[in-house]
């Protein structure tokens, strides 16, 4: 039986460093090639030596597919392609291709220029790597080679995020990357058709969460910001440069517009400006509202949101500031936080997850006194709010996707083991399909039962149609006669005559002959006559002929009678039938073996 093997090199029962190897129908595919935020050593990148100990990866991989531009999905790409060595195609969507190098470059700068690491990939390497990228469009089927094809679906996680279907013959795997089933202010919801893949590899970041309605959270968020502004306080929203930041910007921008608010909103400069540019460009990847209104006004051209300057932080009066990074562990967001922390009118809103050890994590857990570098402490008086805006599918969303795609097997990655276990139970119970959750380096194997397509000649099909009922009934299988020819990797079902002709063979007739002894005192012609009458009464609907040359023909079966030499009352019946009439022939022989009924004249 053919098998599909899936081996996570990263993101197996873990979040970060997404890298999953899939072997399907003799092809090897790498899905995502990310880095881990939590490590600074070799564990940062996936262990490519799993694929080959030495040498380049090109001959072991047929293609690499990147689902979206987050670094935990694409951060190791230049390292793999340029430093380990891979020259094959890398697939990603257009927005991902545009934004990915910006993030990689930023990442490189921080690691090399700030932390002073050596032996890291260079700017040139990022450029070289991007040259190997082949862009994908949504719902476009791309033929990687003759057998392997891939197709991207909308994932709604960030701009350009995609789910990919990988297909070899009739076997297929769908990899979701990160996705979001609830639409937000700038992106739509993930969507896939009923493609019934053999395996659905899904992320499971929020395996145990079922979130409140999105609107509820948005309303809370806006209300908190609004109240704070009306009190004259300042609001700090630490974000990562791309993704949620844009969503929140649009949310605030429209709110400001609707409510005619005047307080300034600032956005920290740099990376984000570049990114916003791409958001403006890739309007087709956004949600219904933005797509429909961009002719009048591109929503990403913010009216109320201006670039931030360091000096603005000390300005009097209310303001809202988006600042990077999102976990308050360094950079501008931390600086502003320190300035504003002392005033209880101010507020900080954490819109997403915070890693343990960061200041974000600490204040979320209610710590009110923070130790800073140099033994100084910081009193946190401002209000701290948490509002989950991360764009991952929650448990219900994951289930919804499974329902949409109807996979035969599930495989969970990109999540914590305990939570995965829980979801796994649910999936198995709800859909009664197998669910795997391999750890890093562990291989999950799924046997498939692919259907083998066979070409059938039209003539044969028509002939068979004419014989049976006119309508093919999907519920009833039908037998048909034909010859299966396997030739140059293709299968063909043709009529036997055509097969003979094609193969240049002569037709051979196969006939079975059988002798049946029969006790009958009558003369030979009489016996034959009796047999004729008997068969006539038994086999209704068949053509039975009594031929003048002393034979009885039932369809094409010939029956002859001769008396045995020793005993004239023992008649020997000679039955002969061709291979095609095997069924009828054997039926006749058993029938005649039972003898003739006595009541015959």
């Amino acid at each position, binding site marked *: 039986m053919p098998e599909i093997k899936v081996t996570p090199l990263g993101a197996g029962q873990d979040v970060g460093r997404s890298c999953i190897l899939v072997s399907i129908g003799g092809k090897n595919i790498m899905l995502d090639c990310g880095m881990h935020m939590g490590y600074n050593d070799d564990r940062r990148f996936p262990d490519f030596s799993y694929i080959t100990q030495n040498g380049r990866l090109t001959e072991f991989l047929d293609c690499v597919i990147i689902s979206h531009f987050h670094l935990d999905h694409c951060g190791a790409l230049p390292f793999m392609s340029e430093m380990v060595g891979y020259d094959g195609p890398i697939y990603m969507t257009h927005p991902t291709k545009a934004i990915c190098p910006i993030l990689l470059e930023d990442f490189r700068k921080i690691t090399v220029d700030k932390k002073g690491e050596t032996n890291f990939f260079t700017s040139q390497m990022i450029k070289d790597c991007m040259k190997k990228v082949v862009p994908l469009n949504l719902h476009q089927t791309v033929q990687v080679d003759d057998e392997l094809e891939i197709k991207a679906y909308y994932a709604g996680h960030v701009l350009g995020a995609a789910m990919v279907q990988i297909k070899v013959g009739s076997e297929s795997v769908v990899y979701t990357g990160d996705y979001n089933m*609830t*639409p937000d*202010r700038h992106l*739509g*919801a993930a*969507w*896939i*058709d*009923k493609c019934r893949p053999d395996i659905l590899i899904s992320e499971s970041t*929020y395996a*145990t*969460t*079922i*979130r*409140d*309605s*999105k*609107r*509820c*959270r*948005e*309303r*809370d968020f*806006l*209300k908190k910001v*609004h109240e704070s502004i009306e009190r004259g306080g300042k609001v700090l929203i630490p974000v990562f440069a791309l993704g949620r930041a844009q969503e929140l910007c649009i949310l605030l921008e*429209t709110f400001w*517009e*609707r*409510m*005619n608010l005047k307080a300034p909103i600032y956005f920290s400069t740099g990376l984000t400006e570049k990114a916003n540019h791409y958001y403006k460009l890739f309007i087709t990847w956004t*949600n*219904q*509202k933005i797509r429909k209104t961009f002719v009048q006004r591109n929503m990403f051209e913010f009216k109320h949101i201006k670039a931030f300057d360091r000096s603005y932080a000390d300005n009097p009066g209310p303001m809202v500031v988006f600042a990077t990074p999102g976990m308050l562990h360094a950079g501008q967001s931390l600086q502003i936080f320190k300035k504003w922390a002392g005033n209880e009118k101010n507020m900080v809103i*954490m819109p997403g997850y915070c890693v343990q050890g960061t200041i974000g994590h600490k204040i*979320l*857990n209610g710590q009110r006194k923070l130790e800073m570098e140099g033994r100084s402490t910081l009193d946190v008086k401002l209000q701290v709010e*948490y*509002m*989950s805006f991360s764009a991952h599918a*929650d*448990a*219900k969303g994951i*289930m*919804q996707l499974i*329902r*949409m795609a109807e996979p035969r097997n599930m495989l969970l990655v990109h999540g914590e083991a305990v*939570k995965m276990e*829980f979801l796994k139970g*649910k999936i198995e*119970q*709800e859909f009664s399909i197998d669910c795997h959750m391999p750890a890093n380096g562990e291989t999950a194997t799924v046997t498939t039962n692919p259907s083998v397509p066979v070409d059938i000649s039209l003539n044969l099909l028509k002939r068979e149609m004419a014989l049976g*009922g*006119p*309508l*093919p*009934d*999907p*519920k*009833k299988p039908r037998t048909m006669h034909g010859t299966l020819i396997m030739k140059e990797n293709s299968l063909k079902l043709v009529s036997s005559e055509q097969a003979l002709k094609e193969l240049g063979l002569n037709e051979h007739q196969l006939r079975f002959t059988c002798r049946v002894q029969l006790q009958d005192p009558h003369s030979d012609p009489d016996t034959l006559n009796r047999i004729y009458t008997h068969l006539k009464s038994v086999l209704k609907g068949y053509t039975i002929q009594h031929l003048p040359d002393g034979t009885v023909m039932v369809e094409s079966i010939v029956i002859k009678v001769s008396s045995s030499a020793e005993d004239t009352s023992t008649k020997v019946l000679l039955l002969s039938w061709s291979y095609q009439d095997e069924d009828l022939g054997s039926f006749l022989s058993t029938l005649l073996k039972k003898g003739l009924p006595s009541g015959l004249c």
Partner: protein
Amino acid sequence: FPRSEEAPAKKLRLSKPSKSAALHIDLCKATNSTDALQYLLHFARKPVEVESVEGVVRILLEHYYKETDNSVRLKIASLLGLLSKTQGFSPDCIVDDAINTLNNEKSHQVLAQLLDTLLVIGTQLPESPTVRQRLIEMACKHLSDTYFGVRNKCLKLLGCLGMADTPLTKDNDGPGASLGLLRDIQSIISDFFGDQDPRVRTAAIKAMLQLHERRIKIHEIIYDQACRLLSDDYEQVRSAAVQMVWVLSQLYPESIVPIPSSNEEIRLVDDAFGKISHMVSDGSWMVRVQAAKTLGSMLQVSHHFLEQTLDKKLMSDLRRKRTAHERAKELFTSGEFSSGRKWADDAPKEKLDTNTVNLIASGACGAFVHGLEDEMFEVRIAAVEALSQLARSSASFAEKCLDFLVDMFNDEIEEVRLQSIHVLREISTHITLREDQLDTVLAVLEDSSRDIREALHELICYTNVSTKECIQLALLELLKNLNKYPTDRNSVWKCLKFLGSRHPTLVLPLVPELLSTHPYFDTPEPDMDDPAYIAVLVLVFNAAKSCPTMPALFSDHTFRHYAYLRDSLSHLVPPLRLPGNGLDLVDSRCGSGSVESAQLFLQQSLNRVSTIQNLEAPGAQDLLNFTIRDLQRLGELQTELAGAADFCATYLRCQLLLMKALQEKLWNMAVPLCLKQNVTATAAAQQILEETYKLEFLYSGLESRQVATIHHVRLQAKALQLILTARTRQGLDPLISSCEKFLQDIESFQRLFVAELPHLQDSFVDKLLELMPRLSSCKPVEMVKILLATLRLSGLLQLRLPEQIHRATATIIEPTGESDNPLRFTTGLVVALDIDATLEHVQDPQNTVKVQVLYPDGQSHVIHPKPSDFRKPGPDRHRLITQVYLSHTAWTEPSQIEVRLLLAYSSSSTSLSSSSASKLGWSDSIDSLPPPEAAVEGTIPFSKPVKVYIMPKPARR
């Protein structure tokens, strides 16, 4: 083609040679199939008169048999269908031929078209069961065709013509039907629910739905099959299946169906509700819209199911949770999932019995939560509408869905926000807002969109709140709103009026604070022109109306302000019974039962008037005069009856005019001597005519009886006009034509009000109809004499009042006409003038309301506002917010123009609407139709004119 009136058809027959002959020649000329097709296409553009249809059909059929080309045969088949639709042509003569062609046809496409033709024939012959039976048999026979189109058409035919009670034998050639059993139509159709082609599956469901529409009861067995189709791969199948499931749930709501994988059973409507809820998270948005819409109409669903639709966390299983014990468990399990609103509450807790929690519920879980969060706003709107429908029928559900609707106030699309505000208003009778909810609702008051704000004001008018803090909050926010958007003044005041009169007891404790009175100190008198202060006063006075202790808290200036406001803003400030000052402002009209007594009075007045049998009875005119005066006063006093009173008064005025015009002495004098009277009579006739149009079109709620009465008066006025024309003796020809016209009028009156004639006994028309044979044959002079006699003899027709009559009114809010600063603009260019008006009791304002601009030089422009300029803030109310463009040549001085609203009417639109609707033919050639009758079109001014000061300046060079 056909179906035009007989009149043009006759003309056609006279002037043109028969259609069939021409076609025959054309078709014979055709040398190849392309030519023939061209002829046929050309032929199809022109109508065929009823008489020649059959001939044409014969020729077509003849050609059909000879034709080898599929496309030509197809066209002929389609033409046969079109021809069978000809009005007045009975297609039973071509049934045999059509069936015959069907039997000999090989091409699948042509077969499909022929079946379509048969369908047309079948629908044209609803009375013939034999034809129907034959057609059904044909359809059954071709159901096994290999081409999907043929199967589709067969199913459609079965759906449109199939009968519930005719068992059918299905031919043996189909798979699974070889037993030759008698089968009924539904099981034949439902066999195709499993067809391999999705288009055929869809057609099968549609056919079944068609049966349902034809009031054939669908069997309950279909339910299971329909449910299975809900998970079809194709969206159109799923969409149709949703409808099918819905239909069945309405037919058999109380049936019991088993829950798979358990031994329990639930009601069918609940099961269907659960299944359709499931479809709200379908992959295709069309299906989602369909499902969300459908949910709204499933009102029989049980309570706990309904409430599940708003719950995301309680995963399924509720259907089996019935005992208290299980309910307790449910509380326990609901803590299992994190909400995403608090940090770190998604830490895995101890593992629960996973069997009790299903993530994808088979039930209705969270259907609306999903629907309201959907990506496509179409789905969201559908969900909001469904919510409103369900909430209106269930108070507890209304309570529950409140939060969700309030959430929708924050939607990114304004349409959705507006819709949810409207919905909340509709269900607001069921609910009382809590403070936090009110808070979120009020936050929207700052919205920059005027529509949203006004919808919200409308909502606040209808809301109930629970505490005095809520009142305070609402007042505060409304004042803020007033401050930010001063144009909302009227709307905010009105809003506070209702808020006050709804919650007098809640306002009471707030009064000292609101009026900033102090027990010991005199506080400064607030500025009377401050809109915010007026707003507060409106709230307080309205509350005081039903709270007699409140005025004791007022300070002196409050009473003075009351008196002022009562005069200047009488629609906002109610009359109050105030102590001291001897000021008793309470009118008797506020007492309970005053409406009934007014109604009684109205009726009595009418009865009194009806005693006037003879128009020349002494004192009759006086009586009428007094009654009219009484009625007018009544209308002013009792706003509920204003429409009815006005209507009666106008009617009586018409009668009075008529009476005066027919006074004895006028008619006994020689014509030249009474020129002056003649002039007054002519004017009276003209005025009566105008008044009758007002009566007919300005009032809503009229029944056909009243319309008949109005038309009757009009007829009298026309008779009067005719008599006056005769007296002026301007020649015989115009007289003859106007006599003819009058006769036509009588005829059309008779045609329109056949049903009302019994009520019009002894009336003018009744007598005329009796004399009709004589009238139509006699000379004009004689006719005039008869008319005069009848007119003078006929009594007053008693007016019967319908339940509710409302007079259409319009008030222009903006421009106010108070500005002294002229609007300056350059001559020849345009200037936009903002108009804001409220319309009440106007039906179809998009088509009838027009703006008229009158320039000082007598020029007038009528502007038709865009349909989108009309909003509907409440029942029977519309709001017109539009801009009109003015332009004029240069003036030397600023001058005033007048702006007013007109109500346009057309007599044809009401009286002949039934006949005009049937006139649309397939060739869409309306140009050949004659105008139905001389339609009287005109306009009635129905708002007070507003003067605007403008100044077109000469262009500077």
